[in-house]
């Protein structure tokens, strides 16, 4: 069953079309990847889904309901959480307070009776940044801040989690742990939609991948299908003469060696 449906969404800024009739679905309980070259409109899609950007035309459905015109905070309350590509951590609060504030917002008045800081510690522990708890959020490394945004989003117990380039700034081991966490989350019923440039990560954790180019979905399928799709090759490496795509596909299969 699809949890999220993006239907024929168009976003125009002035004369430039950032998203051009994009249509895709995210299946409940899956980890879905949204990939594509720079400027393909991935972040704009996220903004449309979370309500930060109103589409020029088209619809967004969440859990069967049309939320195209729903306010940002209502979508969040229905269960859409996200992280940001350009960090939006609360810089003047500590790492622990960042998560605490998310719990405060999520729980509303009920939260007044929240017993202790158990939840906060647990969330920080889960994403693996408990050691930074007392640091100010604007003084931690990028990768850590991304994990903090993840912890903050998880505090609101989202049903759909949108992650915008979550692994940039993480090292190899952290990326691996992060991938495992995503799979675990999906298993618990938190569907994940992720924009990501780390192909190893995308290929290893995603159930399905949508490829966006010039604002349109040019391919969709399992990692194995995407890997050999010539359209995807072309989108990533540029327009090229016939025949070269196959060569690249081969080299793609071979390359697993490079660390960041």
């Amino acid at each position, binding site marked *: 069953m699809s949890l999220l449906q993006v239907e024929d969404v168009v976003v125009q800024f002035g004369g430039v079309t950032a998203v051009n009739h994009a249509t895709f679905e995210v299946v409940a309980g899956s980890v879905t990847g949204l990939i594509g070259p720079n400027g393909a409109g991935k972040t704009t899609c996220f*903004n449309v889904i*979370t*309500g*930060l*950007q109103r589409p020029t035309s088209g619809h967004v459905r969440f859990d069967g309901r049309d939320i195209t015109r729903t*306010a*940002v*905070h209502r*979508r*969040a*309350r229905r269960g*859409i*959480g*996200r992280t*940001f590509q*350009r*960090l*939006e*951590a*609360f*810089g*003047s*609060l500590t790492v622990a*307070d*960042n998560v*605490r*504030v*998310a719990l*405060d*917002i*999520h729980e509303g008045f009920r*939260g*007044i009776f929240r017993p202790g800081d158990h939840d906060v510690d647990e969330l920080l522990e889960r994403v693996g940044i408990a050691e930074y708890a007392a640091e*100010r*959020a*604007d*003084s*931690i*490394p990028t990768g850590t801040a991304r994990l903090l*945004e993840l912890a*903050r*989003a998880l*505090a*609101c117990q989202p049903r759909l989690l949108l992650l915008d380039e979550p692994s940039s700034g993480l*090292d*190899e081991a952290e990326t691996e742990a992060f991938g495992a966490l995503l799979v675990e989350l999906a298993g618990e019923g938190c569907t994940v939609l992720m924009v990501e440039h780390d192909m190893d990560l995308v290929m290893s954790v995603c159930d399905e991948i949508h490829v966006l180019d010039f604002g349109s979905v040019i391919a969709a399928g399992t990692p194995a299908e995407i890997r050999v799709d010539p359209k995807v090759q072309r989108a990533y490496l540029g327009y090229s003469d016939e025949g070269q795509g196959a060569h690249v596909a081969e080299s793609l299969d071979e390359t697993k*060696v*490079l*660390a*960041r």
Partner: protein
Amino acid sequence: MDSFLSYTFIGLFTGAAYAIAASGLVLTYSTTRVFNIAHGAVGMVFAFVYWDFSQRQHMPAWLALALVLLVVAPAFGVFVQRVLTRGLGSQPIGVSLVVTVGILVGLIGVATQIWPPASRTVPQFFAGHLITLGNVVITWHQVLTVVLSGVVAGCLYLLLNRTRIGTAMRASVDNPDLLQLYGGRPQLVAALAWAIGTSLAALAGILLTPVIGLQYYDLTLLVISAYAAAMLGKLTSLPMTYVGAMGLGILQSYAVGYLPSAGNVAGLRAVVPTLFLFGIIVLLPQAPLRIGQVKGLVSAPVPTLGRASIWGGALVLFAMLLAVGLSTSNLLLLGTAATYAIVMLSLVLLTGYGGQVSLAQFTFAGVGAVAYAKIDQPNLFGLLVATLVAAAVGALVAIPVLRLTGLYLALATLAFAQLMDKLVFQASYAFQFNNPLHAERLSVLGLKIDGTGSYTVMMTIFFVLLALGVIAVRRGRLGRILIAMRDSQAACGTLGLDLRWLRVGLFAASAGIAGLAGALFAGLRGTIVANDFQFFASLLVLLVAVIWGVTSVTGAAIGGVFLMYLPVAQSDHANIAGLLFALLGFGAVALGRDPNGLANKIFGFNSWVVDRLYPALAERYPGMALRSRTDEWDGAVDGVDDESLAASGTEVERDVVVAG
């Protein structure tokens, strides 16, 4: 029909002057993103300069005009852009509001210092020359103004569309960084925009002076009309600004001509620009949530409740000592200081924690005072009602601008303050014109607090209790949410926070605190008049709060005493009264970029002693066993970070070499 025609002509004249002022505002705002609240004050000062040149120094009118418009005003504009407001465009909107309010107050100070209050007249241009059309009489001055507004529009059109620097000006509206990559000089463009903008404010001021008189405040408030007109063009479109200005001028003229000149609606005639501004602000479309990299602010330290209680207790004890020792008139001053301090507490909540700016905080105090006097219940119940009334009014101001942010909310409060000053406070259900209201002193739980000394102590207790409340909010859930909202609206929204209603609630709470201060003040004085709550006082409260630190309760306490002392100092040293305003205004310009203010410098003293002074002494006199604090943690993180990335870097290099 004749009167209709002549009102139309008067409206066109006023509208033309508004258009000149408003186009200057649009020019400066759109090129540098600094909204100049002092635009009207600039016009006021240069009207005085023109008077000085033409009347006092007896220069010919044309020479005086040329000197002002082509030399003095542009030079001042460049000075403001280069020195006072440089780099403000990229700062939070609150900072640029505070700085330009500082300039406004500073300019009024300068004007009163150089040209002390006296009767001055500026004759019309071509005085005595009239044009008669049937029964309608038009002065050459009016015709000149309309012609000049056309000339200004034409020149601006040519400048912006037919010259490279004008094209560069429009380009820098789009993208100043890119203009720089093109080889253009954004600083030059900005300086030119401010030179022209200032000159246009001066021209509008000079043209309007013969009609509205050479006064400090009326010309300063010209800015509201200019905003209203500029807002129709969304602060960027010059043609729409002209349409707005002309429409507003004519509307105002008809209001003067056709609305009754007596009764409760009489005041309406004076507030047409304000209502116009309100209307346009309300009709503006929803502002999107801002997304962007967030830099945290360094806040003043927040004391624990226990520690704050000890300080509060000490403060109350000190007030008791003073209550015994001081004369009644000095006690009244102390009570006034407590009033100001409580109003500043309301700003700590709103501006210091919430990041919103209000230019009407003392007006809310006035609402509380009037409510307290009118319901005539001098007890805690009456106080509560006064507080709630002020809070409700605060919510009423915030709700229409719910969808908008920063600048527009601040402008709405300015319009509101103006509306209250001119319309509501003057009406029969409030003060009426110059009519004092009587209020009795408070009784707490049946105990009448009659003596000025005990009343002052009680006000201090109120201040301490509210301060503890504000600290508790800051340390609690709500405080965290407020800081989060200030840091990133987009993140708060996507976590499920309804920013709009939080903002309204915050605004209402802040107005309520100010209203409480007003009610207490009414009891202190016994009689209050509309003049006690003029909008100008709100500006002073804001500036003093920012100077002493709008992020801390200590700042509010010191600021309250400081603001109480200001008029005392002014009456003691009447010859430098204006200078003190100027110092205050330009002090805020200097300190406005750091909301933590001077109070934070005091907090920093201790750690300065430990971190800087001790090590320095220890180095010089090794014998002294002084210990310094070191920030080990910081260094450690940097080291680890660099190392891991450095390691991964070499790995990539190796691999690539192998692959190649």
